[in-house]
């Protein structure tokens, strides 16, 4: 088994600005209905939570090694809040196809936000052996 990782960060202020400038169009183009629901805190949309989800989508794009000529809409990578409060990734459409083509197995995602930025790490199991060390005696 090998591993693949992707990491990204997003500015919370940039997300707030997008909400101010583009409102619902920005939300609908980037986030799924579940992500929008999960990003509410006390009935109000929390830009920190949206930024964390955006970072997770981009981290997943890096992990999937999406090429510049490959179209993977943001909705194809979905961050889903679990009952315990942590999050998981669900891949759809082209993102799921890329994962299958790469032989990816389990996915793990972790998100955080602090000091005006949100960050995310995505890790995936691969079939290939990515170890770079050997056990020579």
């Amino acid at each position, binding site marked *: 088994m090998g591993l693949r990782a992707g990491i990204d960060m997003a500015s919370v202020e*940039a997300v707030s600005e*997008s909400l101010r400038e*583009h409102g619902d169009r920005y939300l609908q183009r*980037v986030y799924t209905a579940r992500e929008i629901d999960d990003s509410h805190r006390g009935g109000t949309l929390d830009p920190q939570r949206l930024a964390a989800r955006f970072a997770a989508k981009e981290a997943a794009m890096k992990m999937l090694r999406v090429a510049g000529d490959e179209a*993977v809409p943001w909705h194809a990578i979905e961050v889903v809040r679990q009952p315990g409060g942590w999050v998981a990734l669900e891949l759809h459409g082209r993102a799921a196809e890329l994962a299958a083509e790469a032989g990816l197995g389990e996915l793990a995602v972790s998100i955080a936000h602090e000091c005006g930025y949100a960050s995310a790490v995505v890790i995936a199991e691969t079939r290939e052996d990515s170890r770079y060390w050997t056990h020579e005696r």
Partner: protein
Amino acid sequence: MNAEIRKIVAEHARLAVDVDSLADDADLYQAGMTSHASVNLMLALEDAFDVEFPDSMLKREVFESVAAIAGALGQLQQEAAA
């Protein structure tokens, strides 16, 4: 069209440099545009040119340069006129 695109890039792409110092084919990501800024750029281009980028065009290379954006907008406008 390129002048209008440059104006929108200047307002929304959050470049680290003046867009007018860049060639039409210069890489906007290399010039500091983040993936999140590319979303704002896309939405602003849609407003300005009255088009909508379909899912099939949501790829990095479409927003990579002024020339690439012009090509994509030209294609969308042609399709709309057909």
